[in-house]
């Protein structure tokens, strides 16, 4: 372990504090949704369409209801009849002609037509799981098969899936100056062209989705325990849009959640149906997905086809970038499905470079496949893949060192803030610093020797770069809402200093592996000078905290952490008034540091605990001040944060078998200030592993008939321990300029840079322009001349 990660006993900002949440997880005391039970609970099993598109002509429940223990069968049509609304998409994206996107109707469970394999159309509830399963096996739906659209490449030329949605297009979105970009290409000295695919991924958090819904008929209170990354948003959507229950009568609890990676952001059919059914049955109902259901019905990620062209002048300076992408939206617009291939993708196509003219057009296409939505990185890995693959290829075509070509085109530190031609304003960065450090760590100069050594072993070694940028902590609310977002992008935080001086902190962010309970306590401890161990972080329960937007897009610290800083500042201001009154001075004469309110030019001071006590026992207290010592804040960032860095991969390809071995991986990332480096390194490791999975192994495949071929962990390959090397992770620091902690987001960077770096390394090793992800042994073997 590097020195910076040694446990020193420090607990403030920057200390590698060991996580407090670990104690319950390593001892088996975690509290995941499936660990919870209620007296008298029923068990739910969903009936799912085996057809990718079929009309439901009728559902025969008689046999199911005859199964001993089965209590009820509820159908999608019953939900519609009960007035339960569609699952909404939260971002209205407009086509380039100004037209609103075309949404397909999306009842929680299919009522009249099922549109992908695995879409639920009924649920069976029973006294035992076994009875519910038997019941579900005994439900007979009368399906009439309809024509299907599966292949993304031909989706927009296929017959309509939905009436009124011509060419199966939700939208054709565009960004950038098309004419200026065309002019740039007309004058280009060199143009590099690439056709790229970004493979469909299936998230596979190791905890399957689950929920436990309850209804209290005496009070009309609903409680839903569910595997959610954002319980506040879930409550809002289920009440305001889906109308399952009034917001003030609906409590959503997301207890310990076993990984999300985006897939647990969305409002799904299952928890909606379960909370609705719990009220109908007037019994608690529990549902836990089997893994095969996770494959079928969790939102998938990525799935783009892209044609890209990069124009350069005679020096190799980038003068224009044109990108045409078809993005697979699946059968329905999932909660944020519309925004991922548009605002989270097209806006990132400038990368780290000063490309002056960029134009991107994205066709969002419906297919009869599972909905596609945010998966770790959400749009930014796709953008980075386009930019960094084509830049690497351009270097090869120009005969330039790929590091040098990038360096020549990078935005320089003195050029910030930098407005890109695709609508973002980067606040700060130092891209060469990360590149230099990464080149040093990988020993770039020694590559040729390593390549020669590999060749002697019959292996082809390659090196590949990705100098990525990403935008996280999506913001600000006003701009996003103008661009079609249905919700704000702020976060809430509350700090309650209790009468005894201990602290309860409430955050709208949700932790499902990120370690907020540790990091946020470090922040509050540092800001208020209160012992770390006296601070408790509470999250994931709408019954306890303010409305908040949850965890996605690497936003928790930059937005949720900033909200806590803002709340702490308010507390300090109030504390100054209380302390000033008690020390017979004015608030302006009181300073606050390390937990002490001190009267300037005196030896008088009061601890924050003393101030808190005085606020709850206000004997000697300002007349114009409310008692109590708790403050809350909603923090709305005024810009994204822009983590950036360089990832370098080295691979070896076994010529005999086509097996790609990831030999070395360096990630040097600029996340601004770091609260807990131990946790940051862990986030990078995990992101890189998922990126390596995308590059080498993972692929969600539907056959031509719309059946999912990769529906189990036996068929969908994910990285295991012996597929990956030790990672070399380091950081550079340019603090974010617009949030109080100077922090950026670190959760997704690993997955954003790594696929392009690894694919650049593989194509470098093989001496070919492209091979589509994932670079499986068969594909590689064929690419190097194996028999086809």
């Amino acid at each position, binding site marked *: 372990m590097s020195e910076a990660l040694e446990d020193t006993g420090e607990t403030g900002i920057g200390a590698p504090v060991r996580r407090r949440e670990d104690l319950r997880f390593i001892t088996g005391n975690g509290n995941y949704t499936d660990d919870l039970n209620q007296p008298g609970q029923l068990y739910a099993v969903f009936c799912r369409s*085996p057809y990718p598109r079929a009309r439901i002509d009728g559902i025969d429940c008689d046999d199911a209801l005859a199964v001993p223990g089965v209590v009820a069968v509820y159908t999608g049509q019953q939900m519609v009849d009960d007035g339960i609304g569609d699952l909404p998409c939260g971002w209205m994206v407009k086509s380039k002609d100004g037209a609103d996107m075309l949404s397909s109707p999306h009842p929680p469970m299919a009522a009249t037509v099922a549109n992908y394999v695995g879409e639920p159309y009924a649920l069976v509830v029973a006294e035992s799981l076994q009875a519910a399963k038997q019941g579900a096996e005994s439900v007979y739906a009368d399906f009439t098969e309809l024509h299907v659209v599966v292949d993304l490449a031909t989706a927009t030329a296929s017959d309509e899936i939905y009436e009124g949605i011509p060419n199966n297009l939700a939208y054709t979105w565009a960004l950038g100056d098309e004419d200026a970009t065309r002019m740039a290409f007309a004058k280009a000295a060199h143009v590099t062209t690439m056709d790229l695919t970004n493979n469909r991924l299936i998230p596979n958090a190791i905890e399957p989705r689950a929920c436990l819904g309850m209804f209290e008929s005496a009070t009309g209170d609903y409680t839903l325990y569910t595997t959610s990354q954002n319980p506040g948003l879930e409550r809002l959507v289920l009440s305001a849009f889906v109308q399952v229950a009034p917001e003030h009568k609906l409590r959503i609890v997301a207890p310990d959640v076993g990984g999300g990676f985006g897939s647990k952001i969305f409002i799904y059919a299952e928890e909606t149906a379960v909370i609705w059914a719990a009220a109908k049955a007037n019994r608690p109902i529990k549902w836990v997905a089997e893994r095969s259901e996770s494959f079928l019905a969790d939102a998938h990620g990525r799935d783009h086809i892209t044609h890209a062209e990069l124009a350069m002048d005679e020096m190799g300076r980038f003068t224009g970038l044109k990108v045409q992408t078809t993005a697979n939206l699946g059968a329905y617009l999932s909660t944020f499905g519309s925004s991922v291939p548009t605002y989270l993708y097209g806006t990132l196509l400038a990368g780290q470079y000063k490309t002056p003219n960029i134009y991107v057009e994205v066709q969002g296409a419906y297919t009869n496949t599972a909905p596609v939505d945010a998966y770790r990185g959400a749009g930014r890995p796709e953008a980075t893949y386009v930019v960094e693959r084509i830049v690497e290829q351009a270097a090869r075509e120009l005969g330039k060192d790929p590091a040098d070509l990038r360096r020549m085109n990078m935005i320089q530190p003195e050029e910030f803030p930098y407005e890109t031609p695709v609508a973002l304003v980067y606040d700060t960065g130092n891209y060469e610093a990360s590149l230099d450090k990464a080149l040093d760590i990988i020993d770039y100069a020694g590559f040729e020797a390593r390549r020669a050594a590999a060749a002697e072993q019959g292996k082809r070694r390659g090196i590949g770069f990705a100098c990525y940028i990403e935008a996280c902590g999506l913001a600000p609310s006003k701009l996003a809402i103008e661009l079609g977002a249905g919700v704000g992008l702020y976060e809430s935080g509350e700090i309650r200093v209790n009468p005894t001086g201990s602290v309860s902190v409430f955050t709208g962010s949700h932790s499902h592996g990120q370690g907020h309970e540790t990091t946020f306590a470090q922040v509050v401890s540092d800001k208020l000078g209160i012992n770390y161990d006296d601070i408790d972080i509470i999250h994931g329960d709408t019954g306890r905290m303010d409305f908040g937007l949850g965890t996605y897009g690497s936003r928790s610290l930059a937005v949720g952490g900033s909200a806590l800083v803002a709340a702490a500042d308010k507390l300090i201001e109030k504390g100054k008034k209380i302390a000033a009154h008690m020390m017979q001075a004015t608030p302006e004469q009181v300073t606050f540091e390390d937990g002490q309110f001190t009267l300037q030019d005196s030896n008088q001071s009061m601890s924050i605990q003393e101030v808190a006590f005085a606020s709850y026992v206000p004997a000697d207290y300002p007349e114009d001040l409310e008692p109590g010592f708790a403050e809350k804040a909603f923090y709305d960032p005024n810009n994204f944060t822009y983590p950036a860095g360089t990832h370098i991969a080295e691979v070896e390809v076994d010529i005999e078998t086509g097996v790609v071995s990831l030999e070395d991986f360096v990630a040097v990332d600029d996340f601004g200030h770091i609260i807990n480096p131990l946790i940051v390194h862990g986030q990078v490791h995990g992101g890189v592993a998922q990126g390596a999975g995308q590059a080498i192994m993972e692929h969600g495949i539907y*056959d031509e008939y719309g059946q999912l071929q990769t529906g189990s962990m036996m068929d969908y390959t994910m990285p295991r321990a012996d597929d990956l090397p030790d990672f070399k992770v380091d950081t550079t620091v340019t603090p974010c300029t617009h949030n109080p902690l100077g922090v950026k987001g670190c959760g997704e960077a690993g997955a954003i840079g790594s696929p392009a770096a690894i694919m650049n390394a593989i194509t470098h090793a093989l001496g070919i322009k492209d091979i589509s992800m994932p670079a499986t042994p068969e594909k590689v073997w064929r690419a190097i001349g194996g028999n086809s």
Partner: protein
Amino acid sequence: MEQSGEYRIAARREDVWSALNAPDVLGACIEGCQRVEKLDDEHFEVAVKAKVGPVSATFNAALELSDIEAPVSYTINGNAKGGAAGFAKGSANVHLDEDDGVTVLRYGVKANVGGKLAQVGSRLVDGAARKMADDFFAEFSKRLDPDSVAVATAATDTDAAEEREFEKSGGWLMWVVAFVGLAIAVILAF
């Protein structure tokens, strides 16, 4: 899924043909077969129940015969629904040849499967369907000639890239076999 195969059955072709068209014989050769009903010369309905552990599924198959050339061949189209377990549909043909008093049965099946059946992956379904075919013909031959067993002389799996043309022939029983194989496969896998 595509499969083809060949069995040698120690019986005269006419006897094999009539057995193939006798619902009771076929039903007896299929484990879990609940019902084989001949609606008319071209239409059959079959129900097969398979059950392992807590999971059970009944596959209801509707079968339609065409291009019947007794006692040599026919073609069949079928659609089997297994509720939550998924479905299978497609076409098959069976051709009977005489070879020195022995009947050589060649079959080819082209099917696609859906739902859980598809998720299992064709490698499992193929293997299970193959085993079911072998088991079926072993039982079938024994009934025609108690002293002999069917010998699978050749079997090949073909993928879509290498489609084979089968001569016009028939054999709706293969559908029963294939569907049962698929059903068993899915239940073992889940």
